[in-house]
Each structure stands twice: as structure tokens, then as C-alpha cells.
């Protein structure tokens, strides 16, 4: 059914349609509206046979999820930013135990300095934790990916994060097609666990593993992600057959076949990039876009296939690997290994800074003209940075950096964007 609704609520409806059995919730912006929506639906009895638990921390949220998933219940939670970091030990544990929990990450920056707005630092910090990570481009895709996520998680016995840009998607009202219960039931069978805490067949789960088997157990985690690499496109096909929509898959490419320059990105910024690319195409530029939906497992082959005819690749990412540059770029460059391409990393949109078409046009034009460096910070205010660096050079007790820089900028809330 077509609906004008908030991204968070669309996700809540999708999760409810997946017949979750245990949902644990701890508030952190910008994921709050999702669990609020689910909490209301469960309390109103609209989601049958479901326990909604308000826990005391994200660490507890993931831990409760581990307990319930290990007892055979389809389990869901959501988090963001500091919350994801607070639960990290349990995040790794859920993956290590092979528990198919589904979690929404409403992507948000990580402090300090504290910042509630969108970038991808939170879930990318967890790239090696063993979870599958799927990035939604639109609210429709966020909704659809949750339905696919439960099926994928349960088939390969791995937890899945569905990542959607905080505020930009979670709080945006737009049209989505909410499927029917019959459609979801046809796509997603009841959960049949591979392992379960069951008095009828007692097992020990979570024993210590020493050097004699640790490598093998870890390799299996990798092997399961490689299985997921095969399953993700198949599930997208099945999904299309039931729901009639292209959603999910490993990557989405747009006008890459004849492109000299390909822009790689994840999440909602792909929309702005495509608009910019459309404009530049009209002007005769051969530019295309590669959107990465599956960040983990990382689709090396599919990325390589999309890039192999290009001459130049710009990876635009909402994350920063401090001390080297890009996080996504590193993976893209691995996919490009051996290809003679010019590669550029562009760090953009950190902490919610708007990525505008104007800035993108300038950036892509520079790339086309061979004027773009290896690492660029889009729209960085060099005056502010240089002023602070100068202050630190001249004054030992220069004070807290973030606060000094804010003072230099002055009151500019209205200028954001």
C-alpha cells in the first residue's frame, strides 16, 4: 500500500510485518522513532506474540538480543552512533555466536565532539565485527532491506545491520510502498534456528576455543559472509518476484557502462550524486555512479566489474579513517587492484554537513580535469582549521579545540548546509 510516512515509521512497519518475537530498545537519536513505533504496535497488540523490552543500555539491548536469539526467537533492535559503540563487545559476540539478529543502524557521527547528525562513522567502525552491513539509499529501500535482512540473517546464521542515514532518511517523510502481511509471509518463512538453547536437546554454547580451532572457527565466519555474497543477489531477485521492486542486491550501478569517471558512494547521498550526474551527462560528460548496498560482505567482483572500463574513480564517503583517509576507499581500491585507474578519496558530509549538488559539480569537474588530489575533504573551511593550527603553534594552553573553533565561527546555525 502506498503511504506518505516517515522513514523510521516505514521501517517499524516493515519489522512488524516480519513477525519479530523479541524487540529490545534503548533510546538514541536518530533511531528512536523506529523503536517508538514498534513499541506502540506491540503494546496495542498489533504485533502478535512479541516481547518489547525497554533495556537500560545498548550493551544490554544487544545482550538481551543474544539471549533471545539463542533461544530461537526472531530478534530485532536498533541503534546509532555512541549506542553502537557502547554495545560493541556484544556486537562481536552476536556475530561470533552466529545469531541472526537484525539491527537498524540510523547512521550518525561519533564523538567527541558530540554530534547527532548523519555520517557513516558508526557502522563503518564495525566493518570487521562479522555482521553483514546493508546500506539503504531511500526509505523504500530501507523498508525492503529489513524484510530481506531477516531472511538473509536466518539463512546464513549471521546478524545483519541495515544502515540508513540518520535524519536524512529516518526523519524524512516520503512515499513508500508498504507490503501486505501475505507478501511478507510468502517471502519470509518462520525462523528455524541452527542452534538453540533447548532442554530437550541440551547444548553448551559459547565455550572457550583455543589455538587448536580458533582460526577454523574464524574462517567459517568469513565463509558464511562469502555465502551471503551469493545469497544477497538471489534474495533481491526473489524479493522482486514477490514485491515487484528492485531493492537490495550487492551494488546499484547507474550509467557506468560508458563512463570515463565513476563515483562510488553509499546511502542517501547517491540520490544527490545521480542528480548531479544527470546534469553533467546532459553537458556531455561521461560520468556514472556505483552505489554499494552490501558493505559487508564487500562485493569485490561486482565493484571491479563496474569500474573496469572507467579511467577515474572518485570514492565519496561519509567517513574518515584518521591517519590514512578513507574507509570505503580502501575496499574499493582493493577491488581495483591491478586496474590502471586514477583513484580519489573524498571525505564528505561528516557530522551532517550537507553535500550539495553545487559542491559535487565542482568536485566532479575537478576530477574530470585531473585537478583532484588523492584525498579531499569536501567543503572544508580552511580558515577555521588554519586558525586553530596557528593557535596551537603559538599557545601551549590553547584550550579545547572544538570549542575554540566554534567560537571562531560564531553563531552560524542558520548557515548549516
Amino acid at each position: 500500500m502506498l503511504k506518505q510516512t516517515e522513514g523510521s515509521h516505514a521501517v517499524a512497519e516493515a519489522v512488524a510485518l516480519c513477525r519479530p518475537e523479541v524487540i529490545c530498545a534503548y533510546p538514541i537519536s536518530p533511531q528512536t522513532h523506529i523503536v517508538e513505533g514498534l513499541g506502540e504496535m506491540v503494546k496495542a497488540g498489533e504485533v502478535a506474540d512479541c516481547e518489547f523490552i525497554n533495556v537500560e543500555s545498548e550493551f544490554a539491548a544487544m545482550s538481551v538480543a543474544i539471549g533471545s536469539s539463542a533461544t530461537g526467537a526472531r530478534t530485532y533492535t536498533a541503534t546509532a552512533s555512541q549506542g553502537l559503540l557502547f554495545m560493541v563487545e556484544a556486537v562481536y559476540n552476536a556475530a561470533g555466536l552466529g545469531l541472526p539478529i537484525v539491527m537498524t543502524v540510523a547512521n550518525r557521527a561519533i564523538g567527541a565532539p558530540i554530534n547527532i547528525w548523519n555520517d557513516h562513522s558508526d557502522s563503518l567502525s564495525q566493518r570487521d565485527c562479522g555482521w553483514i552491513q546493508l546500506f539503504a539509499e531511500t526509505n523504500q529501500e530501507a523498508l525492503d532491506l529489513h524484510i530481506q535482512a531477516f531472511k538473509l540473517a536466518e539463512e546464513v546464521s549471521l546478524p545483519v545491520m541495515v544502515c540508513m542515514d540518520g535524519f536524512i532518511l529516518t526523519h524524512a517523510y516520503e512515499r513508500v510502498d508498504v507490503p501486505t502481511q501475505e507478501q511478507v509471509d510468502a517471502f519470509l518463512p518462520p525462523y528455524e534456528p541452527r542452534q538453540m538453547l533447548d532442554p530437550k536437546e541440551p547444548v553448551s554454547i559459547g565455550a572457550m576455543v583455543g589455538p587448536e580451532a580458533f582460526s577454523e572457527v574464524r574462517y567459517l565466519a568469513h565463509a558464511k559472509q562469502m555465502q551471503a555474497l551469493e545469497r544477497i543477489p538471489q534474495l533481491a531477485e526473489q524479493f522482486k518476484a514477490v514485491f515487484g521492486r528492485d531493492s537490495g542486491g550487492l551494488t546499484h550501478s547507474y550509467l557506468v557502462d560508458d563512463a570515463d569517471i565513476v563515483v562510488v558512494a553509499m546511502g542517501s547521498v547517491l540520490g544527490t550524486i545521480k542528480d548531479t550526474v544527470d546534469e553533467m551527462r546532459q553537458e556531455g560528460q561521461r560520468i556514472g555512479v556505483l552505489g554499494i548496498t552490501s558493505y559487508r560482505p564487500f562485493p569485490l567482483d561486482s565493484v571491479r566489474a563496474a569500474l573496469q572500463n572507467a579511467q577515474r574513480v572518485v570514492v565519496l564517503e561519509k567517513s574518515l579513517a584518521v591517519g590514512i583517509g578513507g574507509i570505503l576507499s580502501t575496499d574499493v581500491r582493493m577491488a581495483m587492484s591491478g586496474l590502471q585507474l586514477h583513484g580519489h578519496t573524498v571525505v564528505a558530509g561528516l557530522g551532517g554537513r550537507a553535500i550539495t549538488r553545487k559542491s559535487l559539480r565542482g568536485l566532479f569537474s575537478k576530477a574530470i580535469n585531473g585537478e583532484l588530489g588523492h584525498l579531499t575533504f569536501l567543503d572544508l573551511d580552511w580558515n577555521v582549521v588554519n586558525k586553530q593550527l596557528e593557535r596551537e603553534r603559538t599557545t601551549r594552553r590553547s584550550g579545547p579545540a572544538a570549542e575554540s573553533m566554534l567560537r571562531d565561527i560564531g553563531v552560524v546555525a542558520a548557515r548549516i548546509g
Partner: protein
Amino acid sequence: MSFQPVHFYQTGTFTVGNRLLSAEERSVQANVERTNSLNSGHRACQGCGEALGARYAIDAAMNAARGRLIAANATGCLEVFSTPYPETSWQIPWIHSLFGNTAAIGTGIAAAIKVKRQKGQMDDVRVVAQGGDGGTTDIGFGCLSGMFERNDDVLYICYDNGGYMNTGVQRSSATPPAARTATTMPVGPEPGNVFGQGKFVPAIAMAHEIPYVATATVADLRDLEYKVTKAMGLRGARYIHILVPCPLGWGAASQDTIKLARLAKETGIFPVFEAEHGEVTGVLKIRRPQPVEEYLKLQKRYAHLFGKKPAVETIARLQAAADKNIRKYGLLDQEAN
């Protein structure tokens, strides 16, 4: 296996042979049909109080749950010595996740069971979460308090040996004052663990007004079985805190585990009581009052108190703390009267 004959005996203590009791009054452990939930062959130290406490507690819980029990276990000695895979001592469904999240794991299991029961996919299975004092009073405390305040249907059992024994005997918030640990060495002007720190989690559990809180020791195993059985008869969050001497960490002889547990209770150092909804409903009285020295001098962790120049003042402070427990909980008969 046929029922084995039990010899009649009287030991001169308060111990009573099972033959003097009717079948239904006999201990769970006395029954050859007991579960052996924590089976033999594990790798606990000789004289381990935690292994003994866990064996009695979980068998009693299994008995009360008619064999339908799931256990969650914090990282620690009990976890490590019971599951050196491919061997496991656990005869029941058992999960170890992390050090600090065991109460929350219990919550998750209980939630799943509730839903599965509603759907008719599962019997009434009960949940025990267990950990040492480090996993309970320190790193797991947030999750424990959360489980308590939500009144989740979990029995949490803390095996308190007063320190991080698995990592090499470091101080926890349950380490008693003056005790030597690897991080509270008997050096400087205040040797051993400092006074005025630490917490007594049973009292904090009571502050949550949960249905049941109890303390126990491995010296009174019938009392422990009774408390576990009672706890299993109730719903909601329940907490049992068991004092379990650790020969390694306490520097005590393996054969003194029960003796030390008894002395902890008889000196008043460890009050043994039960409470419902935040109010004390029963205490195990001290039978033969003992000065704290009798308890302290058997343990090398207090050896610095008994050198050439005994630390009379420190011992007096420990005695005062025990006396306070005796007053506060009414541990002596004459005080109760």
C-alpha cells in the same frame, strides 16, 4: 541405577544423615536421580567453593523446574573450568556470552521462552543466570540492576569468592577490607584492601524490591537448596548470593572450604538471610559465635594481620564490621529476643 543404601551416621555437628529424614525431606543431592547439572570431570581447583555451590544450586533449580532449565553464565572461573571444549560439564542447555552481560542474556532467554510458550512452541522453561562476584557486582552490575528493575523472570546466582580469581586474584567490589589481592598488596601504611569501599549487592538487590533475595554459603548446603527451591517457586527477578571460599585466592587449605564458609557465617562476617520484596523475612542464626580471628587466620590473604606484630586495630575493625552485621540482621538468638 538402583538406590544405594546410605549408612546411618551422626557426626557430632548439626549434620543429619538422610536416613533420619523422610524421602521428600531429603536433599536434592542425596537423590541418585539428581541431574548432575555440573557433572564431574571439570577442571576446578581442589576444594573449589564455586563448583560445589554451582552443583548444589543448579541441581536444586533443575529439580524445581522439573528438568526444564536454561543457564546463562558469565565469563569467569565457572565458565572456564566447566567448558574446556570439546568437553563440557553442563548437562543442561547453557550459554556463555560475555563477562558483563549475563543478567541481560537471562532476560533475553526469558523473553524468548515467554513468546514461544504463547505460541505453544515451548514448555514452561525456567532461566538461571550465574556469575562470580566480578561478573555480578562490578562489570555486570548495570545489566543486573536492569534485570531487577524490570522484574524479569530470571534467577540470578552470584558465586562470591571476593575477587577476580580467574585472572589471578585481583580486587573486586566484593573483596573484603584488609584482604590481600594482587591489586591490593599488603604493603604501605594500609596493607591489603582499603576500608570504606566495596558494596554488598544483596542489600542493593533488596532495594529493587524484587520478589526474592537470599544469601547462602557452601557450609549450609541444605539451606542453599531450600533457597534455590524457594526462588524457583516464585516468578520475576530473584537473586541468590552465595559465599564460596576460594582456596587459591584466599590462600587457604583445600579441605578448609566448608570450614571457612561456616566461620564466615558464624563470625557474622557474612550474614545469611532471605528477603521478600525488599524486607528481610528470615535469618540463619549464628550457632556457635566465633571471633573473626578464627576466620581470618586460616587465610594467607590476611597473613599480614598476624605477623610478629599483630595488626590489632585492623582486626578490631573487621570484628566491628562483623558485629554490625550481627546487630543489623539479628544474627544472634538473644538479640532477636
